[in-house]
């Protein structure tokens, strides 16, 4: 699957969490990331790399991701992204549903 079926969201705006919204991208749009973060200057690029890797690992190439970060660790960013993808109809490669 190059994209996802619908728009979906996971996560919260609480401290140490991140709210991820994903929406289908048009064919060939690539991975478009819009990031708000309380640590944007320090970790903005790292967060984008995690977001991009997580969706690419699931075989998704065309997607819009909005992430509002409240200081989440890498594992939380990954978990919330996977949850959003799952809710958006993606069939995940990892055996977690």
């Amino acid at each position: 699957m190059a994209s996802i079926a619908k728009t979906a969201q996971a996560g919260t705006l609480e401290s140490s969490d991140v709210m991820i919204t994903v929406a289908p991208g048009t064919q060939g749009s690539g991975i478009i990331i819009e990031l708000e973060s309380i640590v944007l200057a320090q970790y903005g690029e790292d967060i984008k790399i995690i977001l991009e890797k997580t969706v690419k690992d699931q075989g998704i190439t065309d997607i819009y991701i909005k992430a509002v970060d409240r200081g989440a660790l890498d594992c939380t960013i990954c978990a919330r992204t996977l949850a959003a993808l799952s809710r958006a109809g993606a069939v995940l490669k990892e055996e977690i549903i």
Partner: protein
Amino acid sequence: MDLRRSMLFIPGNNPGMLQNGGVFGADSVILDLEDAVAPMEKDAARFLVAQALRTVDYGASETVVRINPLDTFAAVDIKAIVPCCPDAILVPKVESAADIHQVVAMIAAAEKPDQTPVKIIALLETPCGIVEAYHIAKADPRVVALALGAEDYTAGLGAMRTKEGTEIFTARTIVINAAAAANVQSIDTPYTDANDEEGLLADTQLAKRLGFKGKLSINPRQIDVIHSVFNPSLNDIDWAQQVIHAIRKAEAEGSGVASLNGKMVDLPIVNRAERILHLAELLGLMGGEK
């Protein structure tokens, strides 16, 4: 023997608490997918707990995951969580040995080939579960402990839950006896008023007197109080050392009978003393050893 003096619940959909769960010094952390997670967030919590198990350092704490009941999301939880190598699964609302057999089959199917076998702690929180306690404890070698969940249990009885706990006295002693008969640990229900330290102390002291080996906890502030009760006191350690000294001396003198301060030292006394010293050693309390 695994130490389970304190087993701390951590909500499975709260990243802040999940990432800090290892700093409180609980013997076990229970990453909770059941009551602490809203029905609409079960999927998100499963992803979060799976990622936490793979990446968060819980230090010396045993990692336990409370899954959802068998008639809801247990199968999905086990499939997602077991490959992330938790030490144990806490199974809620267990009512029979058959429930354990079902969980064991699902765990075995989900485990990776080289994985350390995942243990099972059975949470007994219904009248049926209490009746079947011994058979549940003996159902499979993976079962290492029985835990009592008194809130659901008293609801099942139609009784009021009180701080004194008169209404759960029978259930407590049944769980302790069944666990001891099956040679597994017994873990007491949590004390749910996190602001009542005196009540927690009294309740934990009662649990220890009855024979429980540990207590569930719903707040990190409860851990120190729980440990203070379940840790052997210096007097306990001193007594245990005297018992072992007396029995060794008697053995060296070719006598099968020993006495300490005029009281006979027989096998149950020696066993109790050995348990105290083993626990003290695990906890690093043996610095003043004679």
